């Protein structure tokens, strides 16, 4: 019989359990010792512990020095939080992803002040089932701030968005918020590959859910939606900052994994007249930054699992996040916050759970990497 090795995670949990058991029978002197040691550790670190016993540096982004000060007096018109790619199964099947989604909600609810709204970036469900979406809605309903929903391909291709639209409304919409025009797109349309193959809805969903499944088509915004964009923007002056949300990146990163929007160039052309445009997307489950002409792009984290960087096409401005520890469920995943300055440009905070958060200043992108470069990874991907 082979010797069973305990992982570090297991050992940590055992020690934690042991420590907690010990705390119950603590006398006054011992309690004060523990308290003193804890205070000392916190003081030495200079910050409070955010989520666990591990001491991490929380958000330089929370300090004044890191904000973009391009606006008058450095004011920030508004903030919003970002949660994405929870990939929920039914609760009875999979608790792992449920735990992560709940953790994200608790994170956002802990923000003070609360964000103006929370944008959910798509892929609430894993296989597009109504029960999965209902579970997601139930979890997101716990958020204190208002929630804006965006659809992902995992929410859509089982019933072609029927359940999702029943629960959350139309997949693309726009609104104005404190001087910024906000558009939420449905960017994961695909050409009909399933009818010729006579796929069942389950097969279609499974095909789309497979990132490396080459049977499916590429994501598209589609001509109808682009016409809607043009119509919607016709009422918006070119001086207005734009904030665009799409599930897939509105550029071409890696086709084989659908880190790609087929008609991204056409969409970019529609956005070109607007000097200050920020596109924020999910789907790629990793830190991604890009700048194409007037458009700044941010790729955000998933709460469920991180994806490795694609072998080709990584935008030059992207600073990779550290390789994720497979032994830690909450490593390489997380949520995010955005601070939109008076100029309408957004600074991002990648709130990586169990790591220090990473702040990316809008200046980094608009200066094409000349200024405010984020910290490089210590442990890059293979």
């Amino acid at each position: 019989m082979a010797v069973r090795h305990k992982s570090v995670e297991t050992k940590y949990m055992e020690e934690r359990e042991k420590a907690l058991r010990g705390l119950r029978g603590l006398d006054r002197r011992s309690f004060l010792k523990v308290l003193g040691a804890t205070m000392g550790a916190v003081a030495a670190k200079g910050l409070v512990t955010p989520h666990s016993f591990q001491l991490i540096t929380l958000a330089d982004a929370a300090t004044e020095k890191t904000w973009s000060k391009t606006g008058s007096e450095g004011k920030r018109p508004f903030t919003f939080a970002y949660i994405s790619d929870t990939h929920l199964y039914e609760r009875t099947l999979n608790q792992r992803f449920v735990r992560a989604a709940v953790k994200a909600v608790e994170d956002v609810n802990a923000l003070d002040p609360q964000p103006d709204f929370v944008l959910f970036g798509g892929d609430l469900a894993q296989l597009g089932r109504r029960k999965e979406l209902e579970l997601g809605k139930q979890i997101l309903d716990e958020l204190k701030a208002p929630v804006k929903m965006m659809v992902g391909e995992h929410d859509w291709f089982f019933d072609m968005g029927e359940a999702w639209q029943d629960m959350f409304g139309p997949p693309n919409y726009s609104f104005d918020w404190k001087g910024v025009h906000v558009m939420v797109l449905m960017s994961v349309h695909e050409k009909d590959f399933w009818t010729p193959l006579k796929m069942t809805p389950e097969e279609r969903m499974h095909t789309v859910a497979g990132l490396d499944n080459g049977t499916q088509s590429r994501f598209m915004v589609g001509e109808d939606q682009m016409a809607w964009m043009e119509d919607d923007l016709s009422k918006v002056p070119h001086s207005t900052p734009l904030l665009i949300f799409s599930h897939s990146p509105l550029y071409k990163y890696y086709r084989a994994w659908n880190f790609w929007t087929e008609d991204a160039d056409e969409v970019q052309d529609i956005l070109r007249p607007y000097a200050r445009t920020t596109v924020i997307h999910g789907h790629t489950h990793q830190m991604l930054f890009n700048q194409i002409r007037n458009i700044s792009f941010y790729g955000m984290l998933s709460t469920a699992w991180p994806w490795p960087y694609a072998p080709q096409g990584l935008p030059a401005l992207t600073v990779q996040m550290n390789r994720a520890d497979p032994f830690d469920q909450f490593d390489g995943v997380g949520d995010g916050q955005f601070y939109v300055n008076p100029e309408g440009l957004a600074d991002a905070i990648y709130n990586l759970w169990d790591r220090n958060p990473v702040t990316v200043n809008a200046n980094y992108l608009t200066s094409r990497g000349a200024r405010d470069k984020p910290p490089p990874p210590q442990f890059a991907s293979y």
Partner: protein
Amino acid sequence: MTPHKKILTALVAAFSLSAVVYLAANRSPQFDSIGNRLQSILNSDALAQQLPTHDAGESKSGDVVVELCDGKTRMEIKGLKPGQKMTHEQALAVTRALMADWGRQHPDQNWQMAQGEPQGGAGEWSDETNSTGATPAPQMAVPTFPIPGFAETGAAPAGQYTSIEVPTAAPTMHHTHRPRPKTPIATPVPAVATAAPLKPTASVTPPPTAAPTTAPTKAATTAPTSAPTTAPTAAPTRAPTTAPTGAPSVVPAAAAAASNAQPATASAKPTRTPKPTRTVTATHTPTPTRTRIATPTRTVTATHTPTATRTRIATPTRTVTVTHTPTPTRTRTVTATRTVTPTRTPTVTHTPTVTHTATPTHTRTPTPSRTVTETATPAPTPRNPIIGGPGRRQLPLQQGDTYASFNQRDVKIWQANTERFIQEGKEVFHDADKLGSTIGVSCDMCHPNAANTHPETYPKYQVQLQRVALLRDMIEWCIENPVKGKTMDPNDPRLRAMEAYILSQRKGVPLDYGKH
């Protein structure tokens, strides 16, 4: 067959047909993949390979010359004309004699091994795999052997072939139609007529076979031996039955040969029927029999005369010897082995072998003299003196092992098996159920195309496990933890296939064990 069984059979057939149609209509990936696999195997070059053929040439007397696939060892069978068949025992005797001859020339080699080696140089295989780069036939000389059933005639004529006489009693011989200079059918007829006057039907069949390139006198000597055995049985019995039915198809040929047939009818007239109409049918009937026999024998003859193979083989072998011989030491070693052979075979029966084995080496020795002069000219130097350049066959390939003996067909089959194994691994990798996940998680969810599995870095110290881990240790860990399944036995085909899939996705990435 009972009615019940008939109905059952019909139902099964209909069901099978509809299943095939359904699969084809649905374009099931499985169906496609099986079809593609079969198609690829069927389309493989290997299946298109044909057995090598040789032009063994022919003896001056027109007798059959038999040659081994090495293109060197050959033997003339006295009295056996092209197209004639030997008995099984006689054929075996010839085979044994040829193999014995080859064995004497190659005392240290095994026939199967030697013929299994690639001859294209640098490990390449060609369709002429079995036809080694043989030196041209006329340079060869081989000894003679006593073969049961054949009369040994001693030294080969013109120093070329071993000659073996076929006994005149060769019973079942078919007449060959060799593509030789056309001799009028009328020519041999007088000879036959004189040789066998008592059996006039014999005047019909022998002419085509007995029409050699040599003088009609030679035909006259061979005709009596073969003609009486075949001709009388075939001609008279078949004539009345086949003539009416076969007539329309044979008409043009018969008409074309009408002028040639005239002398034959003249000879047949007195014995058979005086009526001219009957003689016409008599002259016509042999024609179909002739064509029938000729058609199969033609294909046999064709195997003997593929000029293409000969030219192909001849060209590279010459260049090989040219590039080989510049090193004088090599020629010396060759002679050394030659001297060894006679000392090993002091037996009386083997002594003729010694003398004869010397002959091929003698015929080779002229080549070095040529090569010396060619190496003196500095112009055509190969890119790599050992393996590269135009003279890549300069070094003899190692031979004698089965491990290195494979061809393109083998490679394709191996590749197909490997790909199937990898495909199985891919399916497990992408399927939570096959993986045994209890929470619907499959490997591809975190590792599309097996990315970030970095199998090339194992073994390495896995800090989280606090020990050195192999790739399969990490697969097992993933199955147990994020996938929430049961670990697999190391010999579980799913685990092995997944390993194969993961490795296949990192093809070309250098191994770098221990990397973090």
